[in-house]
């Protein structure tokens, strides 16, 4: 399953109007100025895949994931942050009988999260089970965060062995 669309609403620097990023298979580049919100899109994908560590999402707590408003743009703080990811499931690896699988997560100011699979509410445990069948998780090796390469250039031989050991 690859990503067909990412929708962000009230998530970090993304405001109350839903922003949609339609993606194809193949090689897509995302570029833009410093601080424009590129890495926030990566955080959004980790968030929708159930990432619990707010530190990994670079936020002090769950409430800080919600758009904090903008005086200059005349926008209030959002009530919730919502991310929707549409996967292409034509290879059927996600054990759901639709060729497009939609996963969404929203977090409210009280820190509570609501997960949905194809629009229907589902528990976090259940959705993680479904996604893990297709190898989808917020901790899998296929998302390389900013700064990882720099850290990898400084690892010791022992750490390098541990990386391979953890894979098996």
């Amino acid at each position, binding site marked *: 399953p690859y*990503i067909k669309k990412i929708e962000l609403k009230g998530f970090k*620097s993304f405001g109350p109007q839903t922003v949609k990023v339609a993606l194809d298979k193949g*090689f*897509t580049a995302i570029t833009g*100025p410093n601080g424009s*919100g590129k890495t926030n899109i990566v955080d959004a994908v980790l968030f929708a895949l159930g990432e619990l560590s707010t530190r990994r999402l670079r936020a002090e707590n769950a409430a800080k994931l919600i758009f904090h408003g903008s005086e200059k743009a005349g926008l209030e703080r959002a009530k919730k942050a919502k991310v929707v990811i549409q996967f292409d499931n034509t290879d059927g690896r996600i054990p759901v009988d639709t060729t497009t699988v939609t996963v969404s997560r929203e977090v409210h100011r009280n820190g509570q999260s609501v997960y949905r699979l194809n629009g229907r509410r589902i528990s976090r445990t259940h959705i993680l089970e479904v996604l893990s069948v297709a190898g989808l998780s917020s901790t899998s*090796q296929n998302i390389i965060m900013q700064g990882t390469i720099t850290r990898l250039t400084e690892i*010791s*031989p022992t750490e390098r062995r541990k990386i391979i050991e953890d894979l098996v």
Partner: protein
Amino acid sequence: KRKVFMEAFEKINDNLGKYFSKLTGGGNATLKLENPEDPFSGGIDMLVQFPRKPSIVVSGASGGERSVAAVAFIFAIKDFTPASFYILDEIDAHLDAFHVSRLADLLLEEAEKTQFIVITLKPEMVNKAQKVYGVYGRNGVSNVIAAKFLEVPS
């Protein structure tokens, strides 16, 4: 456990050589077990050979050369636990223009069977992508526009 580990090691080592060669245009990289008899009691070193240069331990290479080796290592591991999409956030920050465009060529080749979403500030990378999105902020609010011929925003 040892057998499974050694199989993984061999496969990743082969892949490392393949990807490093593609990224450098003819170089070679290999992994070396510090203690082949008992792999878990030692570490794994990496030897890199850039085109027309001698083979050295990766820790003695330059900052950018070590970045190239790290990217090759990430690709080598990828084949071991394949996924259908990858998100790479500024993995090209310390690469010079030659290595960025080699990496872009590699991504184009691999993109036939895998989806790559690559965050970058480098024009050589943006220019080779099949699709380009520009992210911009206005008064602290982010937005995204699709644009193939987008210049790297300044």
